[in-house]
């Protein structure tokens, strides 16, 4: 569904009067739910719902040779699939730029915060280390996939248990140990949108399509920002960025309680 100009104007006019179509305030999230271990064959998994938006994240672990430039570290990879089941806008085939951006923003939030102590994933320097593959799958796009995906990825990492390693060094995926990932920090992403002159969080699909600019900020519990991404075509003033970051940080602290 592509919004026509009249609908977009209607959304902007309504927001100016303090009205969102679903009755929320600008800084309200829809109901957020996190369920763990929804895909038991994965090493870790989670389902996050934000209103109508549903996202699944699964973690698969493997043993691989470390990258030559980081021989003493494990590997981390985030991939996102925008499934045709989730939205009339999504098509099968090679990844769209939106899904690449989402995967990279989730990846940066986790990687750059040092959320996983990758050094502890190394078993033998230069030879063998755990690789952590996070796949984020959209089930339904009701708006705000970005924040839902980041939350699901973190929740799945929290739920992850290492599989048993056999004596010959191969992995017995059928048996899980009690060991969790070395997750030392927990980055939470919140995206603030600018629509007209209004700043809001957790947009619906219609609001997202009316958005002029957005900033996704990943924050730690001490309010350190560990990743930022601006999107949308409108250039922003310093004051707008200040307000958007303030709102994101505030909502990240609230979202953290849902984990």
């Amino acid at each position: 569904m592509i919004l026509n100009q009249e609908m977009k104007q209607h959304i902007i006019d309504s927001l100016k009067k303090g009205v969102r179509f679903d009755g929320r305030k600008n800084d309200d999230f829809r109901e957020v739910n996190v369920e763990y271990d929804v895909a038991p064959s994965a090493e870790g998994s989670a389902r996050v719902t934000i209103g109508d938006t549903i996202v699944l994240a699964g973690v698969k672990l493997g043993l691989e040779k470390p990258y030559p430039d980081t021989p003493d570290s494990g590997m981390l990879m985030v991939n996102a699939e925008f499934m045709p089941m989730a939205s009339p806008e999504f098509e099968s085939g090679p990844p769209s730029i939106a899904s690449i951006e989402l995967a990279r923003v989730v990846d940066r939030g986790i990687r750059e915060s040092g959320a996983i102590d990758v050094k502890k994933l190394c078993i033998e320097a230069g030879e063998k280390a755990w690789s952590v593959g996070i796949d984020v799958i959209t089930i339904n796009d009701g708006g705000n996939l970005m924040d839902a995906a980041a939350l699901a990825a973190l929740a799945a990492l929290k739920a992850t248990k290492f599989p048993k390693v056999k004596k010959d060094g191969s992995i017995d995926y059928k048996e899980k140990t009690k060991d969790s990932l070395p997750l030392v920090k927990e980055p939470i992403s919140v995206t603030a949108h600018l629509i007209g002159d209004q700043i809001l969080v957790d947009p619906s699909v219609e609001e997202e399509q009316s958005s002029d600019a957005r900033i996704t900020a990943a924050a730690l519990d001490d309010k350190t920002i560990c990743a930022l991404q601006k999107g949308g075509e409108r250039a922003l003033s310093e004051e707008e960025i200040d307000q958007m970051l303030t709102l994101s940080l505030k909502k990240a602290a609230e979202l953290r309680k849902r984990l």
Partner: protein
Amino acid sequence: MSFKKRPDGRDFDDLRPMEAKAGVIKSADGSAMFKIGKTVAFATVRGPRELFPRFLKNPKKGILRIYYQMMPFSGVGDRIRPGPNRRAKEISMVTEKSLSEVMLLEEFPNSVIDVFIDIPQADAGTRCAGISAAAIALADAGIPMKELVAAVAVGRVDDKLVVDLDYAEEAYEDGPVADVPIAVTSRSNKISLLQMDGEVDKDQMMELLKKAKIACAKINEVQKKALKDKYEVQK
């Protein structure tokens, strides 16, 4: 040990030496080279021209399409496999967003303006150098723009806020590092690209925005000079 001195001896607010030239690729409608320290970016503009595939056409306005790519030998270490990877695609997209607002794309319905950003030599800050080069190239192509755009990576190395990080600083290991690519429009002074990875708090972030604006004003002078050098009538 804390970070007291930059590896190349610059002050914390200093940019690396810059050089810019317009019209470096003769077969293009517009082109530019932008060099900052050891990082070099070429931008080549082709268009406005007819857009294919046709279903992408927008009858209301033209489309700006960026193709960012690092040359296979541009980095230290492994060869970079040519062709668009996820990083290149994302950089192309954020570059499009950072430039499209200043362009009067409504004047070119159904058309596309293609900009090819190629990096022959990289020492951090390639997406920013690419944006700075692309803005010169678009102006060189005579495409109507409201203003120019300049970009720089600012950031944090340990407890210091620094401007225009090079690779050695990005790779600093004895403390927290943040890399913050920012693009600033030349007249309205707004931020059209903002990304960050690393660790900063909000106050540091706002301070970095201010530093980026000052640095981008300096880059803007270099951009304008490149255009004047090509077009000003010699007396």
